[in-house]
């Protein structure tokens, strides 16, 4: 008998708790209802004090078949107001509804939720505010206020919280130090003159990954002096490393860059004297005759000197 009473008690608790749970889900549907009446209904439901600006007028339509909890009902109401061009301002426990364009001018706007308006001053370090402004303008909100403060090289933005974060990230990216830096890249095998010739050809193609740079060959140290931003310098270095490695990728083949002589002429001369080549102890072939009148690649010069 005791067991039966316990079972009944548990069943009662289960039923009442499930009833409570069921009460916490709602379905909303409004069809062309005055915004004031919907606000009256939601204020009563949410136990919040909502102050409507006299300019807040119009009809609201919400269709929903989904079951919503209390917070979701409130959020649906807020989003509906936003869609209709109104802003919600939480103000000392009250909620004020005002036209969106007025929200950008309101000085008492808190910065708590992503839908609220925020005022943000973004100082720039590497670029001028006037240069950044036109790039940012297209992604600001419909009612956002965007202006530059030249005296402190900053951008003033009043926009929704979520958009302020987005714009801030973009501005940080745009404001990155992108000025040209001087760097020296030392080559092991590739001639710096040939390296610069290749780089200049790449630059002529207007490829954005390798452009806007100055490259100067420096033969005494077999280096290339590069003036470019970090991004382009990095790409140039990768290209040079690849070319530099390609030159010696196969020990049996070497590339010798000619400064004055024509490759075809030299090739003919080398062919005619190839019979006079003798193999060294390692099997490499070397010309006996002196070809010192033409410049050799550094690696070949070193080998010849040895």
């Amino acid at each position: 008998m005791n067991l039966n009473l316990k079972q009944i008690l548990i069943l009662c608790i289960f039923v009442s708790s499930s009833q409570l749970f069921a009460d916490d889900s709602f379905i909303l549907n409004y069809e062309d209802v005055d915004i004031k009446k919907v606000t009256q209904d939601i204020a009563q439901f949410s136990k919040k004090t909502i102050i409507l600006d006299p300019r807040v007028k119009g009809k609201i339509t919400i269709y929903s078949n989904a079951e919503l909890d209390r917070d979701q009902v409130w959020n649906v109401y807020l989003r509906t107001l936003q869609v209709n061009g109104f802003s919600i301002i939480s103000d000392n426990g009250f909620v004020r509804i005002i036209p969106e364009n007025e929200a950008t001018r309101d000085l008492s706007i808190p910065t708590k939720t992503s839908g609220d308006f925020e005022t943000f001053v973004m100082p720039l370090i590497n670029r001028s505010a006037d240069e950044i402004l036109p790039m940012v303008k297209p992604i600001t909100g419909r009612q956002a206020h965007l202006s530059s403060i030249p005296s402190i090289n900053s951008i003033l933005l009043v926009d929704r919280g979520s958009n302020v974060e987005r714009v801030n990230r973009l501005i940080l990216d745009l404001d990155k130090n992108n000025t040209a830096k001087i760097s020296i890249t030392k080559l092991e095998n590739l001639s710096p003159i040939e390296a610069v010739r290749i780089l200049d050809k790449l630059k002529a193609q207007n490829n954005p990954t390798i452009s806007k740079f100055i490259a100067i060959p420096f033969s005494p140290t077999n280096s290339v002096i590069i003036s470019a931003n970090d991004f382009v310098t990095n790409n140039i270095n990768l290209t040079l490393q690849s070319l530099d490695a390609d030159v010696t990728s196969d020990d049996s083949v070497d590339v010798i860059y000619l400064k004055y002589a024509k490759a075809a002429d030299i090739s003919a001369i080398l062919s005619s004297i190839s019979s006079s080549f003798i193999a060294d102890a390692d099997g490499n072939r070397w010309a006996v005759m002196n070809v010192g009148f033409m410049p050799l690649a550094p690696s070949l010069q070193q080998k010849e000197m040895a």
Partner: protein
Amino acid sequence: MANNVASTQSNISFQYKLIGYRSGGSDASVIVKKSNKEFVVSIGQKLEGVFELIEVNQNEVIFKDGNKLYKIENLVGK
């Protein structure tokens, strides 16, 4: 939308059109319209001090005046 007008218990004075509702147990409410006037009524409250809202669900809305029941078919959002 003609079906949104009260039908049960013929009473010429009950000519309200349902234009919005929030169903959800004891915390339900409706917004009804008569002529150009809109009324917000929660469960347990009386519409114009006469008709008590006793039931809101996705199919119908029921008001009560004494022993008389007034049902409005719920076609909002359908």
